[in-house]
């Protein structure tokens, strides 16, 4: 009898631990829908998805790094650099293909440098990626002396379509995001690659003893992060039609928020693909909804910070309750 009650309460705790953040997301959605008459409209919903598409892609890359127990502080500045480089190459060659190759190459190079410093040379990830981010920031500013640059009038149509086009009613960035999310979920949860990354994050020493080449895999996660940033940056550049010195600056804080929210979802205790999507949705929704309610942007930072703290505290509390 008593056991039954205990079991029931355990089940309830487990349910909240798994789906609490998702329920929270729905609640925020409902609150915004009542608070602002423009929020719950098909048009705004598509806009919201389009806004959060780039963040989701960046956060998906970050999820890989965090799943392996790492951290990448360079993503915000890297977005800015690729935004600039893409625009410059496009201006000079008028070739979307070359600009894309240049952008992705830079993402991979920075990821490779991050991964090598952290995994092979053994620098602490916070410091190494923070320093690399600083270098990246400097190079970005150097390229145009801190000035914005704009696409030419005769820029190839595809260069704008990537970020601004539609497939039927659905914005193209949303489609890219959905494909990327599905791919991320698949790799993280279904492949041996994903399994090994989680093993490294769960216990790096035990992974070495199990024969996993943890250096190689850790560097891969930084490469994935760099590649994801490049994709997001290209979409962003296409949306802006320009290279902006401040572009992508919010991505770091937002992606960190997303990754921590992600690890509170579906009972994994680690950032996971589906959790990252919902997490990005929450952060995107806060950005969008608070703007609609005319809340000054600085309050959005405060709100986001509080949401992250709440999510992390809750997941810790539930984890502790369950282990008792």
């Amino acid at each position, binding site marked *: 009898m008593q056991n039954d009650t205990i079991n029931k309460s355990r089940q309830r705790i487990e349910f909240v631990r798994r789906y609490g953040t998702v329920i929270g997301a729905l609640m925020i959605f409902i609150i915004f829908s009542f608070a602002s008459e423009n929020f719950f409209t098909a048009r705004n919903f598509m806009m919201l998805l389009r806004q959060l598409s780039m963040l989701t892609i960046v956060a998906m890359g970050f999820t890989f790094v965090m799943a392996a127990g790492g951290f990448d502080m360079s993503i915000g500045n890297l977005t800015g650099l690729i935004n600039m480089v893409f625009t410059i190459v496009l201006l000079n060659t008028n070739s979307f293909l070359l600009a894309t190759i240049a952008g992705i190459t830079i993402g991979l190079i920075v990821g490779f440098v991050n991964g090598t410093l952290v995994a092979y040379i053994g620098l602490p990830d916070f410091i190494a990626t923070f320093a690399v981010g600083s270098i990246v920031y400097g190079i970005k500013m150097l390229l145009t002396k801190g000035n914005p640059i704009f696409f030419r009038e005769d820029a190839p149509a595809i260069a704008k379509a990537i970020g601004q086009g539609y497939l039927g009613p659905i914005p193209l960035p949303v489609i890219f995001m959905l494909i990327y999310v599905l791919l991320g979920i698949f790799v993280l949860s279904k492949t*041996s690659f994903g399994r090994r990354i989680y093993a490294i994050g769960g216990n790096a020493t035990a*992974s070495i003893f199990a*024969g996993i080449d943890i250096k190689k895999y850790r560097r891969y996660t930084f490469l994935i992060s760099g590649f994801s940033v490049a994709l997001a940056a290209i979409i962003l550049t296409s949306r802006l039609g320009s290279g902006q010195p401040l572009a992508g600056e919010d991505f770091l804080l937002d992606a960190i928020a997303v990754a921590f929210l992600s690890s509170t979802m579906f009972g994994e205790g680690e950032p996971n693909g589906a959790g990252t999507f919902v997490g990005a949705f929450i952060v995107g929704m806060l950005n969008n909804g608070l703007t609609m309610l005319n809340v000054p942007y600085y309050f959005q930072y405060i709100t986001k910070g509080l949401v992250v703290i709440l999510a992390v505290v809750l997941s810790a509390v539930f984890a502790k309750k369950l282990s008792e």
Partner: protein
Amino acid sequence: MAEEKKQKKIILRSENLGKEFNGVWVLKDINFDLREGEIHSLVGENGAGKSTFIKILSGVYKASEGNLYVEDNPVNFESVHESEEVGIRTVHQEINLVPYFNAYENIFIGSEEVKKVFNLRILDDVKMKKKSKNAIKELGIKFDVGRSAQFLSTACQKVIEIAKVLVQNPKIIIFDEPTTALGEEERDNLLEIIKELKSKGYSIIYITHNLEEVMNISDRITVFRDGNKIDTVTKDDILKMEDIIPMMLGHKSYENFCRNCEPVDDVDRLEISKLYTKRLKNISFQVKKGEIVGIAGIVGAGKTEIAKALFGLDNILGGKIKINGVSYIPSPKEAIMRGIALVPEERKTEGIVPNFSVTKNTTLTYLNKWTQSGVINKEHELSVTKEYISKFDIKTTGPRQPIKYLSGGNQQKVIVSRWLLGDFDIGIFDEPTKGIDIKAKEDIYILLDELASKGKSIIFLSSYLPELINICNRILVINNGRIVDEFDPRTLNAKNEIMTAMMEGYKNAE
């Protein structure tokens, strides 16, 4: 008689002290006393109950039964702090210093001396320096207390650990294997220091695996075995250290599991010659097909280093290794390809991924077996895991349960299953029965026997002699990074001889 009693007052006494964990008594009816100004050594095999006893004295554990008296006052420590309050301090086996703190900062860590300047409490470096200098001088040693701990030798670091205890003015000092990781000369110096402390009136409990040291410094010796106190003898009662060994080992029968040693295939599968690493010196031995070779040694003798060297986790400085006659250069990847499996000593840190399910832990090493073009066949891995759960009788709610909720023995079975999936040739088992219950231990022995009879080569590293004697074809003894002797476990007096070789300082080195 009365005279002697007066001189040597009893400062600490335990009465029928016992400790149980989950219904298992790991310590029972311990009547122990420590006299003022004596060195009282505690000896016994691993798991004999020495450290449990020490943990009760220092307030880490609460006794389950019995009484403890300090200077005839009953005490019942709720915390380490309470034990320290009455003047009991421990010098731990491991050195725990902040590397970039200098000696006196380390010595006063957590009990810093402060002075008031303009009503602000600031660190009183002058006072701490002076007190530290005095403490170190009291130990008969001189070095610059202003140097960072990281630049000092292990011996000096140990002295800092002792000074840390001395500045707290203890009455009773417990030394837990203080000479581990020290060279011979440093070790002798340390023993002199401890004798010096005794002459200054400190009462000392000394724990060691090294019987030479016991003979060197003890006034009295207490032997523990299987959680019981066997006897307390004065140093004059015994003539040589070999006399203590039978007391430690007892006459208990080790016949619970005894391997039926078949003659082995006379082919050397693994040949190691003149292997050197940072900790290993001139290691040479062979393992045949179907043979179980035991490597016996006390903690820190270099057993784990052999495992790590073979698996490619330690740098090899010299020597050759061959598998099936073909040269082998160790790395984890190469090790697995060439059929080497390693069940590591530290199950928690080196074995399991705690948040992973039983299944994910089981399939971690040979994941590719259940993977097609990168995608894991989850049903297949689940069914394989279920098979091993029932084969080894692994107690779990199911293959999806996180492994951290399993008991130590069951976790170990999962780690062993992990390697069995790969059909290895050479299995290295590093203390595979450490901290697991008797039933699980026996299961592991049976398994090792089975593996050997299927022709696998097993290297069994252990500091627990009875298990080695029961299941090994040969036993090598390692001491201070060298293999010092080899024994046939079936000879009449093997047990005592091996134990002597394990404990015997560095006599046979070179």
